[in-house]
C-alpha cells in the first residue's frame, strides 16, 4: 500500500457503495472526503484542496458528466476518475474526465487507476 496522503473526493448517491469506497481508499492511504450528490460534491471540491475526484456517473438530479464539467471550470488541473454502472458512456462525457471505469471491475483496478492519476503529483 502506498503511503501517501493525497486528498480524494468521492461522490456517489449509493450509500453503501460510497461508504465501502471510502474505507477502501483510506486503507490505501488516501485521505477521503465524501458527498452523496452533485451540489454537495461541488461545494466540497471548491472549498477543500482536493487532489483527485472519484465520481459516480448515475445520480439523481445532476449526473457525473455535468459535475465533471463544473469541476473543470473551477480547478481544471484536478484529475477526475468517472465510475459508471453502465457500459458505453457517451463520448462527450468521457472526453471531460481523465479516466473512466465500469463499476464492478474490482478494487485493484480502481486503486491502480487512481494511483496513475496521482503519480505526477506525488
Amino acid at each position: 500500500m502506498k503511503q501517501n496522503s493525497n486528498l480524494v473526493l468521492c461522490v456517489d448517491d449509493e450509500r453503501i457503495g460510497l461508504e465501502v469506497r471510502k474505507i477502501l481508499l483510506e486503507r490505501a492511504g488516501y485521505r477521503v472526503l465524501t458527498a452523496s450528490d452533485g451540489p454537495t460534491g461541488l461545494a466540497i471540491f471548491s472549498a477543500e484542496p482536493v487532489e483527485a475526484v472519484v465520481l459516480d456517473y448515475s445520480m439523481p438530479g445532476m449526473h457525473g458528466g455535468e459535475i465533471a464539467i463544473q469541476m473543470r471550470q473551477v480547478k481544471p488541473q484536478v484529475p477526475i476518475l468517472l465510475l459508471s454502472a453502465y457500459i458505453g458512456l457517451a463520448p462527450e462525457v468521457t472526453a471531460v474526465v481523465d479516466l473512466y471505469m465500469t463499476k464492478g471491475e474490482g478494487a485493484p483496478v480502481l486503486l491502480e487507476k487512481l494511483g496513475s492519476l496521482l503519480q505526477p503529483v506525488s
Partner: protein
Amino acid sequence: MNLSQFNNILRQVFVLPVVALLVVAGALYVQIRGSNVTVNLIQESDARISQATLLSKLIVDEESGLRGYETTGDTRFLQPFYEAESHLQTEIQTLDNMAGADADQKHDIADLRDEHQTWQDAFALPVIATVRGGGQTNDVDLNLHGKVLMDNVRHDLTDIIQKAEASRARRIALWHRQVHSMLLVLLALALGMGVLIGLFTRGRLHAVSAAYRGSLDILSRRAEELYQSEQQLRTTLESIGDGVITCDAEGRIQMMNPVARELTGWSQTEANGRQLEEIFRIVNETTREPVETPVAKVRRLDKIVGMANHHTILLRKDGTELDISDSGAPIHDKAGHTIGIVLVFRDITMERKTQEALIANEKLAVAGRLAATIAHEIHNPLDSVSNLLYLMRNGASPEESVHFMDMAEQELTRVTQISRAMLGLYRESKAPVVVDLKEMLEEILLLMERRLSDLGVTITTEMPEPIEVCAFPAELRQVFTNLITNAAEAAGVNGKVKVSVAPRSASVEANGQKLQAGATVTIADNGEGIPDDVQPHLFQPFFTTKGENGTGLGLWVSRGIINKHGGTITVVSDTSDALHGTWVSVFLATNPTINAGGD
C-alpha cells in the same frame, strides 16, 4: 333539335311540293283554257267552211236543175232547183248568223245573197218562164249573161271559203303557239319548282342530318363514357388488393375479382350462379362453428356490415385455411330496392403474424427500457460487494468483518429483488392467477427506481391496501412499466408522477351499463399534457412522440393486453397552464372474462 322542330320540318317538306304542284296546275289550267278558246275558234272556222260548201252544192243543184229543164223542158228537172232554192235562203242566213264573222265576211255574205238573187231573178226565173211558155232559151248571149251572174255567185262563195280557211290557218297557228308556250311555261315551272323544292328540302334535310349527326355524336360519346367508366370500375376491381365478390339479391355469385378467386380457390366459371355460402365457407377460429357470411347478414339487416369479424377462418376449396376479415354492403337501385350485395374480404394471416411479432418486439423494448435500471441495480451492489471482499481479504478486524458482511448482504438482497422483479416480467403463467396490484406496482417501481431518478422524477404512491385481481401478471407488469415510463418521461426533470390504486365496487351506471367490481390503477403526471390533435392517435401502432426513443407500440400493446383482460384503459389530459398533466386509468375486474384473442 327537338321533336317538334323535327315535325315542323317534316310538315314543311310535305307542304311545299303540294303548293308547288298547285301553282303548276293553276298555270297549266290558264294555258289550257287559252288554247281551248282557240280550238273553239278553229271549229267555228270549220263550220263556216262547211256551211259555205253546203251553199256551193245547193247552188250547183240549182244550176244543174235549171240546165236540165232548159234542155228538156221537162219540169221534173226543176225539182232539184226548187229544192235547193227553198233551202238556200235559210242556209245563207245560217251562215250569216254564225259567230266569229268580221265585217268583211258579213259583207261577202251580203254580196252572195245579192248576187244569187240577181242570178235567180235576172236569169233563172226568166229562163223557167220562157221554157214553160215554150220559148227558146238556147240564145248564147242570154246564157253567157247567166254564166256571168253565176260566176259572180261562185266567186263570192270562193271568197267566203278562202277567208274562212285563212282564218282557220291563223287560228291553228295561234293554237300551235299556245301549245308551244304552254310547254315552255310548264317546263320552266317544273324546273323552277323542282329547284325550289330541291333547295328547300336540301336545307331542311341538312338541318335534320346535322341534328341526327349531333345525336349520334352524343350517343357515341355517352357509349364511350359508359365504356370508360365500366373499364375504370372493372380495372379497379381487378387490381384492388382485397377480395371482392358481388352477388345478386338472392346471394348467388355474379362476379369475383382475381384476389377473391385466389383466396377462395374457386374460378369465376365454377362459382358463377352458386350460392355464396358454397364458395365462401367461413368458420370461427376457436369454436369451428360456421359463421354467418356478411352477405347473409346484409340480406337480413339490409345495411352495411363492417369488418367486425374477429378470428374468422375461410375454408378454401383445397381445404387450406386463411385468417380473414370481411365486410358486406347492399347495392340499391334508384328506388332503394336491394339488387345485389358486395362482399369484401382480405387475408389477414400475415397481418396477424406481424401483429404477434410487433407485440413480442414491444415486450423486448420494455425490457430494453429497463436496461439502465438493471445495469445500475446489478453493477452497484456488485461493486460494493467486490470492494468489501477485497477489504476483508486484505485484513479486517472481526468487528469490521461483521460490518462488511452486513453491508454485502444488504447489497445482495438488492440484486435478488431486482432479479425477481425482472423474472416477473417474463415468467408467464398459462392461466390467469391472483395478482396483488399493490405488490406488483411496488416491484415495478423498484425496478424503475434508477431510471426515474435519472429522469429527475419524483414518485408518490397512494396504495393503502393490497388489492387482488385475476390476471396474467407478466402482461400487467408490461402495461404498468409502459405507463409509468410514459408518465415519467412526460413529467421530465423535477416532474411528479403519482401511482395510485383503488378498489371499485360493482354498480350500475346511469345509462344502465353494469359495472363489474375490480380495481382502478391511475398513473398521473404533471407534464405538459397531450395536445388534442395527438390524443386520437395515442393507441395507434407506430405512433410515437418520442422520435427514435420510442417504438410507438407501447400504448397499442397495453390496450391490447387490457382488452384481453376485459378491462379498460382511458386517457385524460389537460394542457392548460394551471392544471397541465395526464391521467391514465386502467380498470381491471376482480374476476374478468379473459378474451383469448383480445388484441
